[in-house]
């Protein structure tokens, strides 16, 4: 049985701001450049796991981690049964439908009845199109989504954009916004009850820290 809390962090773009926040709270001993995946901060009795972003919800849902930091995009896609008490505010991005400029120039989204879309977000994509009465054929990819329209794998893509630079570089144009995302703190349902004091304290500390830096 563990004491203390376990916090799952996503590798990738949310890691640096998450680590900055933890450092401000005095948590130390995490070296993201080492090949280690588990770190301990004995002072705070905190264990940190470094995971692939899409794996964070599973660790928290099943209680392998009490808390996690993860993008809202992933929460919307996976709908894990966890609490998400805190919006960290950083890691802002948007999930959009995009297509090649040439197609966009003659395209009318109001006339879509059937589309083929390449994406990492099959559930959100399906929900978005079916709510509009559009049949969607989904090509599930794991990365380099922008490539799909260029090689004829799919006409359109649904993907995250931050600045829009990647879309532009690949000759793609945004057609519609599906949702927006920022980093969230998620909490295992049992941990919220059985480790109530420690969990609430950590979240309150984070909230106070975010409030102070805004």
């Amino acid at each position, binding site marked *: *049985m563990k004491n203390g809390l376990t916090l799952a962090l996503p590798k990738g773009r949310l890691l640096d701001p998450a680590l900055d926040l933890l450092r401000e709270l005095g948590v130390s001993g995490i070296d993201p450049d080492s090949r280690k995946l588990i770190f301990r901060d004995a002072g705070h009795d905190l264990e940190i796991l470094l995971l692939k972003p899409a794996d964070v919800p599973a660790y*928290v*849902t099943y209680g392998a981690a009490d808390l996690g930091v993860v993008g809202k995009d992933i929460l919307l896609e996976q709908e894990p049964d966890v*609490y998400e*008490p805190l919006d960290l505010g950083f890691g802002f991005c948007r999930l959009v439908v995009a297509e090649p400029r040439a197609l966009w120039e003659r395209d009318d989204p109001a006339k879509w009845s059937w589309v083929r879309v390449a994406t990492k977000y099959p559930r959100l994509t399906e929900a978005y199109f079916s709510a509009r009465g559009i049949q969607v054929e989904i090509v599930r990819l794991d990365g380099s989504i922008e490539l799909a329209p260029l090689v004829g794998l799919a006409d359109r893509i649904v993907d995250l954009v931050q600045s829009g630079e990647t879309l532009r570089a690949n000759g793609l144009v945004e057609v519609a916004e599906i949702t927006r995302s920022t980093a969230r703190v998620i909490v295992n349902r*049992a941990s919220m009850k059985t480790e109530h004091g420690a969990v609430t304290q950590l979240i309150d500390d984070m909230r106070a820290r975010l409030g102070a830096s805004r």
Partner: protein
Amino acid sequence: MKPVHSQLPKGARIYLPDEAARKRYVEGRLLDVFARWGYREIVTPTFEFADVLAMGTDLGVQESMFKFVDRETGRMLALRADITPQIARVVATRLRDEPKPVRLAYVTNVFRHDEPQMSHYREFYQAGVELIGLEKPEAEVEVIAMTIEGLRALGLDRFQIDLGHPDFFRGLLEEASADTARHRALRDALARKDASTLERLVRELSPPPHVAEALLALPTLFGREIVLERAGRYAQNPRSTRALANLAEVYRLLRIYGLADSVLLDLGEVRGFDYYSGLYFEAYVSGFGAALAGGGRYDDMLGRFGYDCPAVGFAFDIARALAIMEHQQVPVELPGPDFFIIDFTAEKTAALSLARRLRDLGASVARDIISRGLEESVEYARAQRVHHVLVAGSPRTAAGELLTLDLRRGGERTLTVAEVLADPAKCFEGVGGAGHV
């Protein structure tokens, strides 16, 4: 020949003998608790007419019912997805005139076409009770106390009972006059304690300021007794006020029972919203992200079957209890036969008479039918968790004698068949008494 592995449909599961023994142990411990509180077991049909089952069942659960056609009538049948509406109907029709309260217990399988997760399969097992005919808060306290006793009977620690009351939130919704869609969105955000979405929704709804403040506070109205005090400031409508008074009374009684330490108040918990008319609770154990037991008050349930009568109840999820016990490494003693008789003589009379004599005294006795060496037989007995091995006709003993091995405590003795037959209890401690040898 290659074994034929049959494919199981998704959500069906097999309990192999050791797992089945653990499952039976959990069910037995819980039924013991229920019996000690004066509850009597009830058994309801596995399938019924779908429309009848649907009468007492949430829409969401209705959609997950397994359905098929009755060959007699052509009507739709369904497997039960929840036993409470069945029991409610039985009480409303067949037990209507029984003196109240009625205390009923059950262990049953339930079927839902859900995505299997968190040890939850499409066929799953529940053990629970219904306490019917009491509207006083003592009823809630009784079932909460039983839930805690059940958790302890399973050897679990580090658990919390999460206590909520949907009427606190319902009262606020009425004050905010939220439409169904808004209401649904607010609930979804609350269920996730998602403060930022809640903030946006409340801003869009723009209810009176004190209601806005209350709605925004809901995710944090969570903890020990102080929550009642904080929530009191927000309760300005009769419904929310009554809910708080009810929670406070139940909490007071739980303190008298000495159980308040195991309880957390959570006014932002809205998961049981559709099902419960009043106070409800869920039991969580550290390290497992889903509730393993839950219950509460459903005063409207019997009314759906034409009999207005208050009711409370709860159920344990057996598979989750098993998963948590494994996680907490709760030792469960798995049963094996008390005796295993190996008879090397041609006539086998010793084996037959010993087995009969010991079984008559209530001991469990297995016999080695296969001819094999003593060592192999003992190995088999060990794998079966046998307590005593009795060997007749061993080359090491004379005619009429038995070699006996105690596989649990170790040691071997030589006894005569005659003395064991004459007084088994003298030879083997516990035979003829209660329980195992």
